[in-house]
């Protein structure tokens, strides 16, 4: 088990390191931030001074080493635009993003899994078909189309909900719904097929044959076994709590990480973009790691296999 965890941890660290390197190389290779920051008509001396003060005149590998060294001391660089610490700028935006993504995640779990399980237990019924149809529709409609349709219906035509901004909790309703619909569909479909597969297993037949109540069979025998594949998807959703709101934040002008990323990318604010990429990758990697460990806990067979 310890070896299993150690290997996972090492892979997680290598992954984060790869993301940092990728972000660094791509962002530096792609042109001079001095030009974008200062505009086209500034004298050469100003450009030179700008590049010198940000260390952009150094060779790439010197910049890279300096960057890695400063990350280890907790210094993620300074925003070229706001002259403030990049990490602070990014962390300021995290709560706003979580205000959308956490309720959306809860909504996905609360609606998606029960709908899928119910459909699996009532196969071929009217409800089952309805769930499948809605689920497929839910994840084939892209979030930007869904968001704009909701705005069109509830803000423009009915005029009952605001179309953008972050002033009150009412402003969060449409973005949260937009964000959760696709996930509800995916979870419903996944839970349905996981449950159907489990319900066909011999141990379920044994459990019902020995006279257990139907509810007990479902709760104690079927659900724990169906949980393994569902946990993978949920883990992925948790991992994208930070990154998953880019499009929705942009539709509803919600001042979260996604909007900051788009604005900073437009401004070529290297430190901020790097910091966002690092945080996104770290959340993703950590939640994947937790899912891997949860697997071992949920399914002892995987634990012994992975250790070998």
């Amino acid at each position, binding site marked *: 088990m310890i070896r299993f965890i150690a290997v996972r941890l090492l892979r997680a660290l290598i*992954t984060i390191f790869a993301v940092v390197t990728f972000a660094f190389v791509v962002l530096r290779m792609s042109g001079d931030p001095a030009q974008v920051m200062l505009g086209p008509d500034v004298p050469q001396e100003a450009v030179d001074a700008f590049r010198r003060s940000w260390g952009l005149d150094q060779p790439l590998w010197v910049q890279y080493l300096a960057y890695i060294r400063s990350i280890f001391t907790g210094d993620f660089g300074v925003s070229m635009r706001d002259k403030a610490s990049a990490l602070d700028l990014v962390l300021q935006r995290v709560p706003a993003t979580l205000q959308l993504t956490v309720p959306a995640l809860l909504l996905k779990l609360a609606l998606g899994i029960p709908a899928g399980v119910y459909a699996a237990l009532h196969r071929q019924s009217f409800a089952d078909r309805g769930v499948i149809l809605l689920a497929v529709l839910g994840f084939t409609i892209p979030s930007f189309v869904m968001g704009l349709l909701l*705005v069109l219906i509830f803000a423009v035509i009915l005029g009952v909900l605001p179309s953008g901004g972050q002033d009150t909790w009412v402003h969060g309703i449409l973005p949260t719904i937009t964000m959760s619909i696709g996930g509800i569909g995916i979870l419903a479909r996944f839970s349905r097929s996981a449950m159907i597969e489990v319900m066909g297993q011999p141990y379920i037949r044994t459990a019902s044959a020995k006279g257990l109540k139907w509810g007990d069979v479902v709760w104690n025998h079927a659900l724990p076994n169906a949980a393994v594949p569902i946990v993978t998807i949920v883990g992925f959703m948790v991992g994208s709590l930070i990154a998953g709101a880019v*499009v929705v934040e942009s539709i509803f002008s919600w001042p979260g990480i996604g909007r900051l990323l788009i604005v900073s990318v437009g401004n070529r604010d290297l430190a901020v973009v790097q910091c966002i990429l690092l945080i996104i990758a770290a959340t993703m990697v950590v939640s994947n790691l937790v899912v891997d460990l949860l697997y071992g806990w949920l399914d002892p067979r995987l634990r012994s296999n992975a250790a070998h």
Partner: protein
Amino acid sequence: MATINLSETSRPPGWYATFIKRLRRNVPFTVGLGIVWLAAMVAVAIFADQIRPYNITAMDLSSRLSHPGALKHLLGTDELGRDVLSRLLQSVRVSLIIAFGATILSAVFGTALGFAAAQFRGAVEHLVLVLADFQAALPFLIMSLAVLAFFGSSMVLLVCLMGFYGWERYARIARGLAISASSQGYAASVVQLGATPARVYFHHILPNVASTLIVSMTLTFPEIILMESGLSFLGLGVQPPETSLGNMVGFGREYLTRAPWIMLAPSVVIVLTTLSISIVGDWLRDKLDPTLS
């Protein structure tokens, strides 16, 4: 026997009727609809130049933001008086070309890496797995956003970038299938006969794993369409004056209150197309994938 089989007395059905009958028996109705829609979209993509009534940049300033339904502009016009129908047809073409190109790229790239991992094992395999971890850690939308914004968007870059989408899925499948194939008799025997690795992989293993790979292509294809339209919606994908489905939705968004049809027309096409691929893909998976059932 006194009973007469009526079907033998009637005229034998023509090839057309037989075809329809077979089709009805083998293809569910919704799948049929999906196939028809996809065929129509492919036809639109091929003949977009011939069937579109106007040039996509032609401005009709006297009828800006005109409502759909008029004979002159069936789906209305946008803020510059450009015909929405013409732009829609061109958008279908652009979005489909990108999605086709990218799907093929990512299938080839991923399968090649998967085979390489299966052939060489050791360091190469670890490298492929690290790359797959990397891909899983950085959401694709975020990565492409950074790359496109910093390098500037061009059609070639967009297709190449989208060509990385989902490669890890093919790599994982190809690696797993190739490893299990090499433990089966047929691959080992051609190796014994002196076939080069390339021959073993492309002539013997690939045909055996092709159906599973094709199924995952039907999964990747709609996702690439959504990814491209999402990027274009954010203004980072296809750049004006060229147009794509997401790009149209993005620009239509500004006229949501006054002219919702600009944004609704491409939205409907996106949803119907991804829905069709999803339905047809599920059906194909049931038919083709030997690992199911």
